[in-house]
């Protein structure tokens, strides 16, 4: 019997009900971004349920400690304001947990009542609750606006606002805002830059924070992440690259308008073409040549595409996820000769529709896509019910559709709750593209093996 037994192919117009969302709310993105700053303690200014849920979601995804504080609103503070809760929290956090930075984000509760983080933070400083040399930074992250990707973008900007200065002494560095992606992806972006000899400042950087070792000692603040001192220098950098339009545009624009650091927003470097753009942008901004080692990796990607194109060609894919991830993936599957038949993202944005149309213009199939409110996994499933696909790409929640419809699932994005890999192996860069192709092919060929009649069961593929 089907798990999602109440889902049928009969699609009714919905305007108010979201079923099985392809998104979650802002603060979890902000919490994730804050963990990419060294010595940083994320704090959720709202009632404590949000913080518990966000910590749990990140912990289940990474199988790693995720520690954060909360203002623990009661009904009283919800009516009269959360100032005293937040100031008490700041005092308790510095006293007991001694972070370098507290990064405060909000929830729908504190946003609806209109708490002013700037004013409360200033009061905490004036009241002597912030020890010398320590910092509080903040970002407004109302859950009823945008999604977790918006929350990430808002906190990244909050981090920059908290630390970036212009000293007037330019440095030769390139700022890289990595977008909402995995620690392993951030490490890979860094590796490519290092191979080119380009000195970058990456903010946030969760590599080493959410994929750390077991040493027998718990470190609340792992020796990783961007340091406040390093972030401070970003106003003196030569340029900024943001990877992912939704997650990084705010930050890139902020550095441009406040510090005159010119910036470019590129797609997340997933797949061949988007990685080419990242590498080429590093080359152009730094004036350095692309080394043979990178050309070699790129050539390997092209080689695999050519070797296996007969298995990729014409395969239909359904995808759900975050827009920056999805747009890059759509371009990649088209590069491989596959068809992105159905695509949903819970995060809205006009650019999504425009870009999808552009990407799909030469794809010989009536592909369906939707973003925002009712662009959920329920709709995706209904589309699939009406016309089958060969591959599903998205987070763990798609496993219910995968089982019901007997479609192989490639786990990608947030959250992945039932497999390992995302925190250790990249899906960006040329090596990430190779890993994705390995996963796609493995799934497609396993299915061919499973379904082949005896006579057509082949040793070689």
């Amino acid at each position, binding site marked *: 019997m089907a798990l999602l037994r*109440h889902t049928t192919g009969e699609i009714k117009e919905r305007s108010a009900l979201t079923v099985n969302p392809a998104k979650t709310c802002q603060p979890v993105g902000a919490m994730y971004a804050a963990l990419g700053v060294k010595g940083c303690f994320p704090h959720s200014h709202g*009632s404590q349920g949000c913080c518990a849920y966000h910590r749990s979601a990140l912990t289940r995804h990474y199988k790693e*400690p995720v520690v954060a504080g909360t203002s623990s609103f009661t009904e009283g503070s919800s009516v009269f304001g959360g100032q005293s809760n937040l100031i008490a929290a700041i005092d308790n956090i510095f006293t007991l947990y001694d972070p370098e930075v507290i990064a405060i984000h909000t929830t*729908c509760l504190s946003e609806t009542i209109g708490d002013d983080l700037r004013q409360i933070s200033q009061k905490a400083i004036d009241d002597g609750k912030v020890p010398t040399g320590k910092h509080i930074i903040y970002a407004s992250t109302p859950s*009823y606006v945008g999604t977790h990707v918006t929350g990430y973008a808002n906190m990244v900007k909050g981090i920059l606002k908290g630390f970036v200065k212009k000293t007037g002494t330019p440095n030769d560095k390139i700022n890289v805002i990595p977008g909402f992606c995995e620690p392993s992806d951030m490490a890979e972006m860094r590796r490519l830059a290092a191979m080119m000899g380009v000195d970058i400042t990456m903010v946030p950087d969760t590599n080493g924070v959410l994929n*750390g070792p077991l*040493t027998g000692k718990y470190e609340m603040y792992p020796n990783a992440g961007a340091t406040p001192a390093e972030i401070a220098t970003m106003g003196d950098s030569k340029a900024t690259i943001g990877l992912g339009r939704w997650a990084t545009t705010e930050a890139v624009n902020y550095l441009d308008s406040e510090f005159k650091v010119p910036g470019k927003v590129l797609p997340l470097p997933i797949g061949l073409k988007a990685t080419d753009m990242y590498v080429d942008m590093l080359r152009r901004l730094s004036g350095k040549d692309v080394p043979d080692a990178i050309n070699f990796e790129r050539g390997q990607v092209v080689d695999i595409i050519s070797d296996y194109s007969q298995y990729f060609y014409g395969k239909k894919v359904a995808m759900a996820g975050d827009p920056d991830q999805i747009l890059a993936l759509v371009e990649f599957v088209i590069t491989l000769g596959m068809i992105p038949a159905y695509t949903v993202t819970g995060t809205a944005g006009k650019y999504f529709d425009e870009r999808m149309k552009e990407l799909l213009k030469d794809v010989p199939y009536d592909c369906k896509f939707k973003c925002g409110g009712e662009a959920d996994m*329920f709709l995706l499933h209904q589309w699939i019910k009406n016309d089958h696909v060969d591959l599903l790409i998205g987070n763990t929640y798609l496993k219910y559709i995968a089982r019901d419809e007997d479609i192989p699932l490639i786990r990608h994005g947030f959250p992945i709750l039932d497999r390992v890999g995302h925190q250790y192996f990249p899906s960006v860069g040329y090596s990430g593209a190779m890993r994705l192709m390995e996963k796609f092919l493995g799934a497609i060929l396993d299915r061919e093996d499973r379904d082949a009649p005896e006579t057509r069961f082949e040793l070689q593929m």
Partner: protein
Amino acid sequence: MSTKPTNVEEIKKELIAKMPTKVARKRAKSILPGTEMGEPIPEIQSNVRTIPGIITQRGCTYAGCKGVVLGPSRDIVNLTHGPIGCGFYSWLTRRNQTEAGPDGENFIPYSFSTDMTEHDIVFGGEKKLRAAIKEAYDTFHPKAISIFSTCPVGLIGDDIHAVARTMQEELGITIFANSCEGYKGVSQSAGHHIANNQIMKHVIGTDDDTKIEGKFKVNMLGEYNIGGDAFEIERILEKCGFTLVATFSGNSTVQDFRVAHNADLNTVMCHRSLNYVAEMMETKFGIPWIKVNFIGAEASAKSLRRMAAYFEDQELIDRVEAVIAEELVAVNKVVEEIKPRTAGKTAMLFVGGSRAHHYQELFKELDMKILGAGYEFAHRDDYEGRHVLPNIKVDADSRNIEELEILPDPERYKPRKTEAEMARLNEKGVDFKGYEGMIEGMGKNAMVIDDINHYETEKLLEIYKPDIFCAGIKEKFIVQKMGIPLKQLHNYDMGGPYAGFNGAINWYRDIDRMVNTKVWALIKAPWQSTGPELEATYVA
């Protein structure tokens, strides 16, 4: 086994020493030693507001209402009215297993939300809520819809109860709403109470036409079928000859609740979350309740015996004894095999509102020692026993949680036993409405801590170095980074069932694996544990 510190008062001083004065003073009231059997139990501060920034384990009222109590019913569309997060995070994250049967309904794999946007916050969300209910009805045709409010709903003044009433009239199915905004009360606990009230008001006892066949009719209250616990309990009850009318609410249906007033005995597993319904059903319908515990083989046997004693039927009593004897054969075989590898090892449990107590039984069966335990959100009665109920003062933070006034139902109130019978049965140990709480019997060397926070947890682990620590997902990897295994007592680390006799066997095997795993010996690389490089001095 290393020697463990035993002076609770000294350790308590260490736990609070670094805290700001006001915080230390408050925390001191929530930390105390256990007591020996029969000793007077000191008062513990519990069910009070959380200290901001302390890093609590606690969640919110919405989680207690939607996530815990009402979420597990499989044929009710549970609609979250709020921005998307609350509905997303409570989507399949608690392991309430469901078996819908070949023609049954099962909405458990779905998450339904009104997905409020800025527009709804500014102009109100009632219109969208109405539309969402209509869309859910048109698409899914459920028997009932339950609405759950989230933080902003109360602030902007959406009247979800009025919406529920009008939509119920329009659509002709049961629709009821829960005002379980996350900021209400101080924890999940307020959400339990709200869920109890609403299900009592709108669902329980609403079907008098359906006859319930079978002898020895019971309900199981506060059992959520995590990892299949309720399935194992059902298996045992059926084997013994009981008729299970309704489980609140693991693998349950709205129809189960409608006819639940046909039971002759309510049995309560999780006292914290469902004691309200137990009390209200007794007042309204005359159904007595007893506390049971199916966690632990001995505890299961004891609970079955008390349930049989209540019905005063010799055939049932004999059948229960036969079942216990039969089931214990396999249990004892595994205990004997495993106990030599677990005896003397130590454990700590800091979980929710009931398991920190229940699971002590299972550890004792493995001859393990409990060094400390506590709840996130239990009340004094769960710690000290129900006899303290008259002395519990409801503080300002919880005062706005509605107390329903329940009266005996003029037609349907039917006392199951006379007062004399009740008294006689009580003497025989049936213990109506009895719950002794966690503290008694833990012994004065054990720590009892309410609403433990990260700071205290880390300190405790440093001081005690237990062989296993029980808590939840947020603590799991923190503790394991220190080289101490953490057993999740919310989601069972995807194991289970742990209830009943088969559950006990699963537990023994899992704990054996966890306290005897070799992984902790792999932490140091060979070059980190050897001394100076004497071998490298080899000269050709």
